Each structure stands twice: as structure tokens, then as C-alpha cells.
């Protein structure tokens, strides 16, 4: 297709430059400038009043990598991201398979499933917090009737469970849409051929449907991991604020709490830089694989 592509050619340099200028400006102001600032600041320790800065080179990084709490945050982030990704993708795939089999009412079903995506993470966090509030939460109350004493303020496992569920919930809509589109792109006749070949539902899913979905699955995997890394800040901030005892302090939350609560801007900046590197790596991996297109 490449050579068939229609290209618009401009005579001068000024018009094209003007056309891409807004995008360049946005990227420069909201990405390159803060990223550059973060890299610069990560090499200093400012005094508590922000009046002076002392050059420490890679000192912030050295300190971070030997910090027990920072390393624990890596593990927390890994556990949290994997759980959010697995839960949100697993549930979404299951719902998409059900929706794919629907003939009547699939439009309504789809619309209802998309709604949670419109809820901002912080709002979703508050919603879940109300339901699981240790004193007035409706779920807590019913759990109490069953004899279970829910208290995510004290219990680390429960805290992690709650932020995972709240984060995954909004994400299911997004994943569902992609999985459903992926399922519907598989020709019906291929599934029918497999049925005639003797494959029952589960065998068909394992040997035909899942492999053909793999480009979608891989794309969602990377996107969801990045989501769990960054966009879940609001959920964690509203529900647990990283606690109890840093049990839900993922890397991006630690950037905030060390920088703006702990007032250690140098360390916070260094953490941002480390996150930047991690995301770049994830993106590189994504592009490498997507270019190869797992199947097809």
C-alpha cells in the first residue's frame, strides 16, 4: 500500500511548520519542559524552603536504590499492576465473549458496559470508598452480617484488594470494547469450521479464538500496565492514600508523597526520571511486538 499513499506536498517550510506548531507547543510545554525540569532537579537537593539547591550528582538515585521503602514500592507496583491488568482484562474478555454470542439486546448491553469508563478515577475511588467505608459502607455492613470484619484501613491485603478492584472496574469497559471488536473480527465461518472439525467451545477458544485475539490482547496488556502505573493515582489517593503502612504506595504515588508531602523534591524528581525510563522501556517493547503483530 505504501506507494499508493497520497502525499500532500508543500512548497515552503512556513505553512507546514505553522500547522504542526500547536502539537509541538503542547508537547514542549507539557512534556519536554517538565521532563527536563525533573531530570535537572533529580541532580540536586533543595533546602526545605526552596531558597537554594545543592548539587549532589547521582546521589538521589544512589540513595533511592538503597532505600528499603523504595524497593518495596517496586514490588507493590508490580503486584498492583499485574492484579489490575489480569482482573480488568479477564473480566472484560469474559463479558465480551458473552456479548459476542448475544443477538438481541447487544446494543444495550454494550452501552451499559461502557458507562463506567466515563467515571473519573478519583470519583470511582470515592464511590468504592463509600461502599467499603469501615463504619458506614454498605458492603462492609453486609460483610459484617456474614461475620467478616472488613477494615482496609488496617488490613494491608484488604487495602490492596480494594484499590485493585476500584482501578480495574473503570478499565473493564475499555478492555471490553477492544475484546468485543477483536472477537467480531474473527470470521464466523472459521469458528464454524472448527466446530465441524470437532472442537467444542473451550477447545475452539483455546486453539482458534484466543490465538486470533492475540494482537488485541497484547495491545491491551501494555496499555493496561501503563494505566495501572500512572492513572490509578486518583483511586489510590482517595481510597488509601498509599497506606496502611505504604502497602498501596505504588511508584507514582510515592513520587507525589515524597515530593509534596515529604517535601523531598530532589528524590521525587529522581523517582520521576526512573518512572520515565520504565515507561519508555514498556513503550519500546510494545512497539517492537505490535510491529511484529503476534499473529497474522
Amino acid at each position: 500500500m505504501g506507494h499508493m499513499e497520497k502525499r500532500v506536498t508543500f512548497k515552503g517550510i512556513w505553512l507546514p511548520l505553522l500547522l504542526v506548531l500547536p502539537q509541538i507547543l503542547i508537547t514542549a510545554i507539557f512534556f519536554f519542559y517538565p521532563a527536563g525540569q525533573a531530570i535537572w532537579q533529580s541532580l540536586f537537593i533543595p533546602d526545605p524552603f526552596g531558597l537554594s539547591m545543592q548539587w549532589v550528582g547521582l546521589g538521589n538515585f544512589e540513595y533511592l536504590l538503597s532505600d528499603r521503602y523504595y524497593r518495596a514500592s517496586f514490588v507493590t507496583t508490580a503486584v498492583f499492576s499485574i492484579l489490575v491488568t489480569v482482573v480488568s482484562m479477564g473480566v472484560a474478555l469474559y463479558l465480551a465473549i458473552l456479548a459476542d454470542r448475544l443477538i438481541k439486546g447487544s446494543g444495550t448491553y454494550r452501552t451499559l458496559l461502557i458507562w463506567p469508563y466515563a467515571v473519573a478515577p478519583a470519583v470511582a475511588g470515592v464511590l468504592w470508598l463509600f461502599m467499603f467505608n469501615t463504619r458506614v459502607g454498605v458492603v462492609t455492613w453486609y460483610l459484617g452480617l456474614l461475620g467478616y470484619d472488613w477494615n482496609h484501613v488496617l488490613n494491608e491485603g484488604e487495602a490492596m484488594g480494594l484499590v485493585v478492584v476500584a482501578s480495574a472496574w473503570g478499565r473493564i469497559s475499555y478492555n471490553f470494547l477492544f475484546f468485543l471488536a477483536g472477537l467480531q473480527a474473527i470470521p464466523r465461518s472459521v469458528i464454524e469450521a472448527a466446530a465441524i472439525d470437532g472442537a467444542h467451545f473451550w477447545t475452539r477458544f483455546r486453539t482458534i479464538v484466543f490465538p486470533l485475539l492475540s494482537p488485541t490482547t497484547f495491545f491491551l496488556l501494555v496499555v493496561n500496565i501503563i494505566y495501572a502505573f500512572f492513572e490509578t493515582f486518583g483511586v489510590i489517593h482517595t481510597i488509601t492514600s498509599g497506606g496502611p503502612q505504604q502497602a498501596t504506595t505504588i511508584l507514582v504515588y510515592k513520587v507525589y508523597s515524597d515530593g509534596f508531602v515529604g517535601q523531598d523534591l530532589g528524590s521525587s524528581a529522581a523517582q520521576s526520571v526512573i518512572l520515565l525510563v520504565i515507561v519508555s522501556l514498556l513503550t519500546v517493547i510494545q512497539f517492537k511486538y505490535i510491529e511484529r503483530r503476534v499473529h497474522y
Partner: protein
Amino acid sequence: MATLTLNNVKKSFGKTDVIHGVSIDVDDGEFIVIVGPSGCGKSTLLRMVAGLETITDGEVQIGGRRVNEEEPMARDIAMVFQNYALYPHMSVFDNMAYGLKIAKVEKSEIADRVAQAAKLLQLEPYLQRKPRELSGGQRQRVAMGRAIVRKPAVFLFDEPLSNLDAKLRVQMRLEIRALQRELGVTSLYVTHDQVEAMTMADRMIVMNGGVADQIGKPLEVYANPATEFVAGFIGSPPTNFIPGTLLGRSSDIKIGIRPEHVTISENGSLKARVTYCEALGAETLVHLISADRSKITVRQDAVLPLPVEGAEVGLNWAQANEMNFDQAGNRLAV
């Protein structure tokens, strides 16, 4: 290998009846072509035999056994789809071996059977390729191979050649028929192409609006169509239909006459004007229009002189070749 029986098979989607009761006894090893225009229910009928559509009423038997309630996999059939429906992520070998692997056939046996089919279909050099790396004709062969290796009782073909170009279609049509003869597997073949039906079928079912208008051997159907629809659908160019009034007969009838049975002559009883001549080399198709604006086609030998376009000529035919139809399209006994 088995017989196949359809006994007054019907299909409705909600309140809409799409198949109005089709019956046929297919002999072991027979090649049956279901032919008709799109929307006539031919694919639905095939899919009901395959078990991909439920049977609303009537009975389907394979090898004398009722299969209405059985899953596709239990019916001992294999199907070739219009778009081939190959598994895009599997090699040609795995595509063919898939059904056998699921049936837990031994590995050496699978390898043997696939090798045999690959040899038969000249697919040996391509066994490790993916479907997307094959041409249309090769994909078609893989779909055939997948059907063959399972050694089913019945082959079902759903317009398998309509995605191929004209030249390949002629070639594959011969190959499929030769292969089916060699294997002797009872086959049901759906097509909208009357040429495929004429050339491939042992017997054909001509479907029209969910009804089997006629079931019979191709030449019998051609020579003796049961309805106006069959006369018009089978044969190219199609049968000419002339209102009875134009020939001084009852206004209740239409007269059908095949293009090859009409001759152009000065003293012909029916006058018509030549609109266009198509010289095809061996023969010429002369298109004419009569006084009441009925279109008539004449097929004549190329050695005969070409009529002048726009000229008024006479048309003649032997009365024995006439087919009379009533207004509902049914054939009338002469």
C-alpha cells in the same frame, strides 16, 4: 460414505419461512448440486445438513440415521466454505491436521493422512506455509484437504469457487469433480452458477424462493424444465419467453423457447427487429425485440450470415421445442 436423506425439511426464522419443505434421497457417492439465485435458501439448506442451522421441521438422515438433534461434529460431515475459513494462524499442515488432532488420532496416522491429501492436491511444497502466503486456488485446495483427511460420510460445499477468477474456477471445478469421483464421497454442493450445476452435478436441485422447483439430472432439467423459473435460470443465454397473444394463442400462457431452437428466416412467423449481435467465434448471439417489446435471443452457428442490426427479420422454430407455461409459471402439458 453414506446415503443422505432430506425428508420435507423446513426452516423458519421467526414467522418467516425460508425453506418450504425439501425432500431428496441422495445415493451413496452421488454428487448433488443445489443451485439457485441468492436468497433462495440454498446455503441455509446446506447449513441445516451441516448442523450450523437448526431444522424447524422435517428430518435429515445421514447413512439412515436421524441427525436433526446432533452437533455438527457428530454428523460425520466435512464442509468447504466460500471464504475457505482456514485457520489463519496455523500452517497448511496444521490446518489439515486440526480435526484429526481433536479426534486424538495417532500422530503417525495424522502425518500419513495429511501427506496423502497433500499429494492428491499438489500441496506438498506448501505444508509449512501459512494460508496468507498462498494463492486463492491453493487456499481452496487446503480447504479441500481439510475436508478429505477426516474421511467423512458427506462433503458439503458452500459456493467454494465463487471467490476465484473465471479461469481458475473452470480448472477447480474439474478438479473437485475428479477428486470426488476418486474418493466416492456423497456430496452436496451449493452454487449460484448454473454452469457449475450443469457440468458437475449427478443430479441438481433447482431452488427458487425456498422451494425445490425441480430435482433431476442436468440434461433432463435442461431439456424439460418444470417451471418458468427453471427454464429461465438453467441455460445461458436464458430461455426466451413470448406471450401467447403474440403468437395468436391464449393470453393465459407464455411460450418458452431456447435460443438455440430459434432460426432467423425471411418467412418466419414472428417478426422482430435485430438490436445487437454478439459474435463469440464459434457461435453468434443475435438479440432481437418483437412488436410487443419482448426481448428474444437467437443462438446461431457462426457460419451463418450475420443479420444487419436494425433490420426486421422473421423467426421460426419447431413446435416440438416449445414449452408452455401458465401465468403462475408452471409448465403445461402440451
